[in-house]
């Protein structure tokens, strides 16, 4: 495992860490392993998992927040119409790396539709959208196969992202542990509770380490502890330089975000 430091550094870069910082962490980690007179893999485990673990630990340190990074999502004058009904029009939003944006609004005002437009799953009627290529999407419900287990989902989504099965599974299990969840090896997804299924959805959205995360009320069914874990996770993504867009209707979430897009304000008069 002599290439462990390189793999570790590459994973840190892939997770969005700045090159200088990644190089420094790789060097420090190698030195720590040398102090134990053992290969880094024996001390820290697989490089890609330790990289994620270390980033999660770093977010717990109250560091000064980094300046926002490059723009990862930009919407200008985006509109959606179904036949004669205008859902929303003239929506503008700009989210940089290291920022969290919340989309709020009443039921039926098009929050989920806007998120699908951002993902590229739905076509806007008008407007301009620019978006980074690597994007993770977590739907409000569904999005999983009921007869497959969580680990099989990791394999499936990992394969879609070009990851080998073993790595996809270990990454998925590691990400699940950060939401205080240990996936059962034999339990099909349809037997999971609603909250646990949403944890799986979150893990699947993050499995391929996207630069932009689009989350559609992902905390439905979470208990209080998991809900707090979820927001800690959002801040960890933010601090790792990623952009996060969350659809929410919980107003107390809004104090923690950088941008709030009230979609209700974009409804045209008389159509509410």
């Amino acid at each position: 495992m002599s290439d462990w430091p390189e793999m570790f550094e590459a994973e840190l870069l892939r997770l969005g860490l700045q090159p200088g910082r990644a190089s420094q962490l790789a060097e420090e980690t190698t030195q720590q392993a040398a102090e134990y007179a053992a290969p880094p893999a024996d001390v820290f485990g697989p490089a890609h998992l330790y990289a994620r673990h270390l980033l999660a630990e770093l977010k717990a340190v109250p560091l000064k927040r980094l300046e926002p990074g490059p723009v990862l999502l930009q919407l200008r004058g985006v509109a959606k119409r179904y036949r004669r009904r205008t859902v929303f029009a003239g929506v503008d939003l700009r989210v940089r790396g290291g920022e969290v944006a919340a989309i709020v609004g009443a039921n039926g005002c098009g929050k989920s539709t806007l998120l699908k437009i951002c993902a590229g799953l739905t076509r806007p009627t008008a407007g301009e959208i620019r978006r980074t290529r690597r994007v993770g999407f977590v739907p409000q419900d569904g999005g999983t196969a009921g007869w497959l287990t969580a680990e099989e989902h990791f394999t499936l989504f990992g394969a879609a992202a070009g990851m080998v099965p073993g790595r996809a599974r270990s990454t998925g299990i590691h990400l699940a542990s950060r939401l205080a969840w240990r996936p059962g090896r034999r339990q099909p997804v349809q037997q999971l509770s609603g909250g646990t299924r949403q944890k799986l959805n979150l893990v699947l959205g993050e499995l391929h380490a996207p630069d932009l995360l689009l989350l559609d009320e992902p905390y439905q069914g979470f208990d209080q502890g998991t809900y707090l874990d979820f927001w800690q996770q959002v801040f960890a993504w933010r601090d790792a330089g990623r952009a996060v867009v969350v659809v929410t209707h919980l107003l107390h979430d809004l104090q923690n975000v950088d941008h709030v897009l009230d979609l209700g304000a974009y409804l045209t008069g008389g159509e509410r």
Partner: protein
Amino acid sequence: MTALVVASLSAREISRRWVALALVVALPLWFYLVRRDLAGQSTRMLALGIGWSVSTLTLFVVNASRSVDPRLRLTGASTAGIIGGRLLALSGVGLSVAFAYWLLVGVDQDLRNWWLAGLMMAVTALVAAPLGSLIGALLPRELEGALALLSICAVQMLADPSDTVAKLMPFWSTREIGTYAVDGGSLDMVWRGLGHAGLVWLICTGGTLAIFSKRLRLQNYPEPT
């Protein structure tokens, strides 16, 4: 690689739905047992039963995957990988069912050409998977899709094989190859059957791919500057 993983996990998913799987395996048996005294009739009905059960199973698998496919696309999978993998799995299931019934017919009936009876069943299973997939793509709701497949199979069973209507149905090849396997005749019947099956397979597979390519198309946004 995605196609192989999708195929392997789809097969695993089907194997866990053991009640549905048991019904899929049993359905052709009822068709067979009803006219077991007539070798030709029972074998051809058995093959059409395989076609019906495999296409219906495919329809349900395709519909069950509807919410997963867009996420897989967004994660990086190609439409051909997703659809191809699923068709591979369902074709494998269909061929396994066909193989089991081919052995049964070999033991239970005295057919003129047992090998070609196997070809008939294999061709039926291979046509059934993309047919079910195409119906699933065209009719997203399970009830509508199941009724459409029921109509297709009923017309295929009842129509005179020499009629134009029968030739326009997807399992005409089953009747054509089956007639040669049971009653004999010109070898042209087998070639015509294979040609028909090949054409139906291409139409159904191509149609499924075309529909899902449109449905799973991602908007290609430029990168922010």
